[in-house]
């Protein structure tokens, strides 16, 4: 939360409609994402009830477990879900594009596309993670055998859920988080967790303002919750009798109809949200981040057959490395968004790490002749009203063109003087158009798009004894496959 986004909320409350907090889309949106809406049974760790999913809004698939406590039905559901998800993964690969060989000369590839999954909310991510955990260790042989798609599904779901935690990744997106990245409503963050209420503020139905649309959305009888939890009165008055009817007659129609009724409205909302997001122009660095996502996907996909299920807990080294990676990625992601989007850069201008204004003076052709050879070092005086909190000597770059680098040489009542040090060409006169001219509006910032170098960690064999010594090799055990579903 920041003053800028809080201000946006105030404006939304006053006008009755959500207000933008971004001018471009900061996440990748696939041409045919897999929209998935899971529902789970109350009171259980990860007992699936139903899922509505598909890549085409006109053709949702509905998978249902008519008696959620029946183990066979649960695994049949998992097998059906596996088929659809694995198909989506294969269909989203694109071709394998050859890249320049690596340092050791080994061949490198990257798929030209990658699968994207869209869930309604973070609760869905937790559910997929648990579903992945409960299926990836299953065995395809022995007394508790499951179909081969099931453990594969588990490994993929776990992988997607892990990627969701990675800042800037678009492989698994939750629609509530994606919408909140771009719009501020006139209600609280907590209330924004309700997809229907959030959409009510962003895209209210005719005749209603944001508040009225959100109020309507809070009635679970009118607007079924987006899941994975179901409404308790639905459970007690509609679902339980339908399941009882299945137990007696073997017909699953009543259960299917009941659950479809809970899922269909959210399905429509999800696709409407996709339309809203797609209407935004894509941010400049989104493609680069999606490339990183494709790298990760390529690696996991190509190594899938020889790989083993992800371990239950991270080893010490892995945990430390993961934390470091996440922090680096978070910094990079925030910087990239700021460079992509002046409304995000505005945050940094507000807290003094960036400043903007009109070029009011300076010396665009200035040379620095103090050294052996003269260097082109133009001075720009930028008249700004922003609360600058940078010191002289700080390295800065141009927000619109980060290649243009400089440093602050003076901060005074007339503005900030920046000495440009790079990005103007190699000659003693600046390349045409490379130096901002008098009267131009510019923004300079101390943010950098990059971060520190690759982390250095001991490899697995040398885990210090303080962290339990080297981790044992993974050996699949019968116990993994044996757990009974509750």
């Amino acid at each position, binding site marked *: 939360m920041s003053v800028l986004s809080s201000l946006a909320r*105030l404006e939304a409350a006053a006008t009755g409609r959500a207000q933008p907090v971004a001018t471009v889309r900061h996440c990748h949106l696939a041409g045919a994402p897999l929209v998935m809406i899971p529902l789970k049974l109350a009171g259980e760790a990860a007992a699936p009830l139903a899922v509505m999913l598909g890549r085409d809004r006109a053709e949702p698939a509905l998978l249902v477990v008519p008696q959620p406590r029946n183990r066979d039905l649960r695994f049949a559901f998992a097998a059906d879900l596996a088929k659809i998800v694995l198909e989506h993964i294969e269909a989203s690969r694109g071709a394998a594009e050859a890249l320049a060989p690596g340092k050791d000369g080994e061949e490198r590839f990257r798929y030209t596309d990658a699968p994207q999954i869209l869930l309604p909310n973070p609760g869905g991510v937790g559910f997929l993670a648990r579903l992945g*955990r409960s299926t990836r260790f299953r065995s395809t042989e022995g007394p508790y055998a499951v179909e081969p798609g099931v453990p594969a599904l588990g490994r993929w779901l776990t992988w997607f859920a892990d990627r969701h935690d990675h800042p800037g990744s678009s492989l698994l997106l939750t629609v509530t988080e994606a919408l909140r990245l771009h719009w501020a409503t006139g209600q609280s963050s907590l209330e924004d967790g309700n997809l229907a209420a959030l959409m009510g503020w962003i895209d209210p139905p005719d005749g209603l303002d944001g508040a009225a649309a959100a109020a309507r959305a809070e009635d679970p009888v009118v607007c079924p919750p987006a899941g994975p939890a179901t409404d308790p009165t639905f459970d007690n008055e509609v679902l339980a009798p339908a399941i009882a009817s299945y137990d007696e007659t073997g017909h699953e129609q009543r259960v299917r109809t009941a659950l479809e009724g809970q899922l269909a409205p959210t399905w429509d909302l999800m696709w409407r949200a996709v339309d809203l997001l797609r209407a935004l122009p894509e941010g400049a660095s989104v493609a680069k981040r999606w490339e990183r996502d494709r790298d990760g996907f390529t690696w996991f996909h190509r190594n899938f057959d020889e790989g083993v299920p992800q371990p239950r807990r991270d080893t010490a080294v892995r945990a430390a490395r993961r934390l470091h990676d996440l922090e680096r990625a978070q910094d990079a992601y925030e910087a990239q968004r700021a460079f992509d989007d002046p409304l995000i850069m505005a945050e940094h201008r507000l807290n003094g790490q960036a400043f903007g204004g009109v070029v009011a003076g300076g010396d665009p052709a200035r040379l620095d002749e103090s050294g052996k050879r003269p260097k082109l070092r133009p001075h720009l005086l930028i008249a700004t009203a*922003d609360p600058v909190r940078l010191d002289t000597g700080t390295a800065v770059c141009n927000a619109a063109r980060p290649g243009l680098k400089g440093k602050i040489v003076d901060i005074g009542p007339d503005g900030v003087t920046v000495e440009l040090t790079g990005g103007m060409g190699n000659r003693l006169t600046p390349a045409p158009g490379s130096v901002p001219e008098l009267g131009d509006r510019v923004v300079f910032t101390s943010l950098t798009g990059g971060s520190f170098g690759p982390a250095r960690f001991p490899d697995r064999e040398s885990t210090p004894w303080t962290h339990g010594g080297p981790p044992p090799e993974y050996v699949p055990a019968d116990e993994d496959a044996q757990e009974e579903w509750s």
Partner: protein
Amino acid sequence: MTETAPDLDRLRGGAPPRNHDARTIAALTANPGCARRGVMDAAGVDKDAVARQLGFPAPYGQSQFAITRGNVFEQQVKADGCAELLTLLRDRLGLTVPEARYDDLEEVAGSESREMRHARTRRLLARALETGEGTLFDHPLLRLEIGGRAVYLEPDVIAFQLAGRFHVVEIKSFAVIDGQAEPEQVAAAARQSAVYVLALRRLVAELGHDPARVAHEVFLVCPENFTNRPTATPVDVRPQLAVVERQLARLTRVDEIVAALPADLTFAPGAALPESVRAVQARYAPECMASCEMAFFCRDEARACGATGALGRSVRDDLGGVDSIAMALALAEGTLEPAAELAETAAQLRTATRLRREALGGLH
């Protein structure tokens, strides 16, 4: 405190005081700064009924699937004289083989009278403290004084270890997966258990023994991974204990707030109820919706008067504590001159407005 008692009765409008249990007591700690809640809780007003009468009922109801699952798991853990629980505690607490006594305090001679169950609980726990006899006490009934009234509390099991201490054991049906559970659920269970620990310590003190003989470590018994096998996890509830004790102490100081209220104020049902409720100030935040039945009424009130608190605590903080949306916007527009203490906030808001306009206007 006794002077306030008739006042509190009047506030309740003659209705009998609402029965507390561990969950509602733990919920008392959620919003200590709210006078409306403080007064209603101290007086034992039925907040649920008041909310309903005001036209803002709190959503009510739990899924029967969750209830059934919880009951089945608890029954399973307690079957055969708590056989599964004994196995867990032998492993976790180091109970020795001879320590296997089981006392059922759920009923006394077929009667479920609370006074009798509590009396028997006191007797058996006293005997355990004096002679060391007794290991598992199933559904004991404890008592706590809240606002001058007795509240009966019923933990799942109390375990007693020879030459050791009493441990509260709570059986919960949320899963512990690879050693971890949903933090919110663990936190709620910890708060609830802290109330039991508090009540048990007071009882032990009343019996003339050292309250430290009740451990601050409680055991949560939960299903392991995706099975029905139970696993026991120790939880240190000292932080929650401190919070509960502080809040209960605060409840007794509600006299000051009550003294400032109109002398004839009452929360009895009637046409004057909305006005009466509004006469006591609330401190609404969205978090209230998870812990207080009055939340939807207070939310409506906050929204109607354009309070920034309705947008969330962090938003209100970002705005330097400015209470009113209209005022914050006026400061941002520059149409309102700020008081001295709001000068910095106002400057920030004005800059923010300018920056937003510039970015959204396409000016670069």
